[in-house]
Structures are given as C-alpha cells and as structure tokens.
C-alpha cells in the first residue's frame, strides 16, 4: 500500500506547474510535495489560513504554524497568514488553480465521495466540499480498487456525495482518467506495470480511450 500511495503521489506531482496556487488534501495528496522538482516554484494554500506554505522545518517546529492537518510547516517569502473565512473565500471563488483531494469513490461523471463511510469512518467533510466547488482544476487521488478488490471508479457513488460533477481528473496506481464536461470519462494514461485489461476489468464506470493514450512502460 505504501508504494501505491507514492506512485499515485509522484504521478500527481507531474500535474503541478510553475506559479500555480495549489491546495492539497490529507492522505495521499499530502505526499505530493516530495515529488515536485525544486525548480518548480508554487504556492501551497491551506484552509486554516496560510498561503505560501513551505516544508516542515527540521528544528524549532512551532505549534502555531501548521497546515490544515495540524502538522508543522514553514512559510516561504511572499507567504501570508489570514483568517479562515478569507481562506475559504479564496477557495470558493476560484483563486486556487489546482486542488488535489483524496477520494473514496468517484463516479464516471465526476461525482466525488470522500467524507464519510456511514457506520464506519466518520471524519466529517472538512473543507472538501468547498475545495471541490471552487477549484479551477480538481484531481482526485485514490487506489484503483478497495481492500476487497472492488473498483472505486463507479457508475454511481454508493457513499454519500461530497460534491457532484466536480472531479476533472482521477489518478490511481493503474491509470489516469480525465472527465470531460462532467460527462465523459476518458482514459488518458496507463501506468507502468498495467495493461488495458487491468483497467477495464477493474473500472465499473464506462470510459472512452483518448486518441493520445499514453502507455507507460515499466519504470
């Protein structure tokens, strides 16, 4: 599982380009920064009220300087602090270029379920609904299948919905899909070590195949 998470995070990092304003959710997205080349400078935003978040400091960690998950971070030159109403103002009104969230299920039309597994896991929605609503570009990261080997890219989410029609791209350890116009799920890329059958047999939602399909060879 550890490897799968890193494979997904590394592939997600390739979506991040110079100058972007990026918000990362908890879980797999929090692993993304370690795979961004140091030549690419971006400003990370966190819901609690910081823009220009830098890496966890090695020493002098400060309990009052943390990311949305409560872990210590630093601040880059040009960064700023603000209250969480201002923070969500940015998020809702489309000032975040790219939002990368973990997911439990995603439907072929881009519906995202990531806030609750009724009767089991009760984390609560956090900022996910607003991140999904406001992001110019929303990427969902998750393992391709659940613990029992069942597909997580589904025709219709079985879990309670976070936001309808919001996901633009899905990255798993097996594949990269984009979702065109909240309607068409399209396979863009097959990840190393998998073939089309591995994806077809484990993706419940129907999908088309991009004319520019990328097939990654074994790393």
């Amino acid at each position, binding site marked *: 599982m550890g490897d799968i998470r890193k494979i997904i995070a590394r592939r997600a990092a390739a979506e991040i380009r110079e100058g972007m304003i990026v918000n990362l959710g908890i879980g797999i997205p929090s692993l993304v920064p370690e795979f961004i080349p140091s030549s690419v400078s971006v400003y990370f935003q*966190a*819901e*609690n*009220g*910081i823009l220009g978040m830098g890496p966890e400091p090695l020493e002098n*960690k*400060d*309990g*009052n*300087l*943390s*990311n*949305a*998950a*409560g*872990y*210590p971070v630093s*601040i880059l030159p040009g960064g700023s*602090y*603000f*209250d*969480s*109403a201002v*923070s*969500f*103002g940015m*998020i*809702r009104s489309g000032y975040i270029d790219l939002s990368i969230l973990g997911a439990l299920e995603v439907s072929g039309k881009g519906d995202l379920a990531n*806030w*609750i597994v009724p*009767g089991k896991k*009760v*984390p*609560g*929605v*956090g*900022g*996910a*609904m*607003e991140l999904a*609503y406001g992001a110019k570009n929303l990427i969902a990261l998750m393992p391709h299948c659940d613990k029992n080997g069942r597909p997580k890219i589904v025709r219709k989410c079985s879990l*309670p*919905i*976070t*936001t*309808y029609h919001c996901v633009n791209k899905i990255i798993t350890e097996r594949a990269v899909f984009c979702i065109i116009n909240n309607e068409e799920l399209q396979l863009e890329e097959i990840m190393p070590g998998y073939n089309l059958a591995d994806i077809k047999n484990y993706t419940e939602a129907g999908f088309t195949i991009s004319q520019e399909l990328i097939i990654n060879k074994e790393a």
Partner: protein
Amino acid sequence: MAEKNTFNKCTDYKRIKSFFRDDMKLLFGGFGGVGTPPGLIDCLIDSGAKNVHLIGNDAGFPWIGIGKFIVLERAATLIASHIGSNPVAGDLMNKGKLKIEFSPQGILVERIRSGGTGLDGFLTEIGLGTELAYDKPVIELKNKRYLYESPIKADVGIVYARKADEFGNLVFDKTARNNNPYVAMASKVTIVEAEEIVPVGNLDPEEIIVPGIYVDHIVTSTGINWKWIWETLEK
C-alpha cells in the same frame, strides 16, 4: 500609558469559571487545536458545566483543544466540519451521546461571521443535494436553487490570541488566528486567553486584527499544556 486594567477586562481564571454554565452555547476558536485557548479549556473543564452546545471547526484530538472537554461527555451537541482527529467524538456520536451536525468548513466560519456581523444568513450552492443539506431551507432565485445558511451566535466564546491590550485589541500568531476573530464577534460574552497582555497604546493600530470592542474578559495564558500530535509521534 493607561493605568492597569482601565477597562476592567483583565481578570483571572477563577472569575472566568462562573461564565461557563450548563446548557450554554459555546463557540471555541481553533483549528485542530491550533489556536484553541488551553487555559480556558481547563477552566471550562473545572467549571463543571454540562449539557454544553459546542460550535467550532472540529473536535480537536482527545488530549488537545476542545477534545479534552468532549471526552468528558459533557457536550450535548457539536456543530463542526469534522471529527476525524478525535475518535472518541465519533464513538459518542454513534452511541447517541453527542449529537453532531456537520458543516462544510468555510460555510461554518461564514455562518459564525454572519452572526457576528449582524446579517441574517446567506445563500450558497455548496452542499445542495447532499446529506449535509439536512433540513436547511432551499431558496429558489431566477431558476437557480441555493441552500440557506443561518447565522450562528453563542452565549460565550473562547479565543486564543498572541497579544491583547487592556481594551481587548487582539493580535494573533500565524495559523493560530484561523476562526478566532469571528468567535470574538459572534459571542455575547467573549473571553480571551492571550500569551501577553500589554497596556493600551502598545499595539500599532494597523496590526490589530480584532478591535477591543468585541472582547469582554482577558486572562493571561500559561502556555500550551498538551503534546501536539507530531510531538507524540516523534517521542
């Protein structure tokens, strides 16, 4: 320089205890415990107040922030955006001992702001058609549908600040600011725990984030008295 405590707002924890009552609506500042006033949480615990109605970003951790109070089973309800960091809160919810209303995180702070700025709620598409719409009114305008989010106010609010002057002007520290300014605005009685209390005139009028008009009582902090999650993992 003003005399000490000109505004009669500086006080001690003992006197603060009497503001925490059974059945009160309590707004607490903080985000995962960061920016939650540690001394006032202990004071709330000591007060014996029960059947408390809590409103804040999250349930803290079982040993951090509001979580320390929640595990005592003296909260009746909680409005929050998540409880993922406090499994005890989840257990209490599943056992029917704590009623939780989940709200999208930014919508929640905006509801508190609406209460604190004298507005009567706002409209948003966020949450429409999801379980988090609960029984909130749906308003239709020009053929579009919106959820109505009502304003939130509280009887008592607890706030953590870096510095307070004796009038209650507040300055915050980095990400410990988060929702604290709106807690101060939306609470009938606002109690501030400040790392430092300074005489009136010592703060630059430009650096003040919360004007003292919102603050009723101020106590000096004795510092964070819990281990952060990352300290726990390291040691």
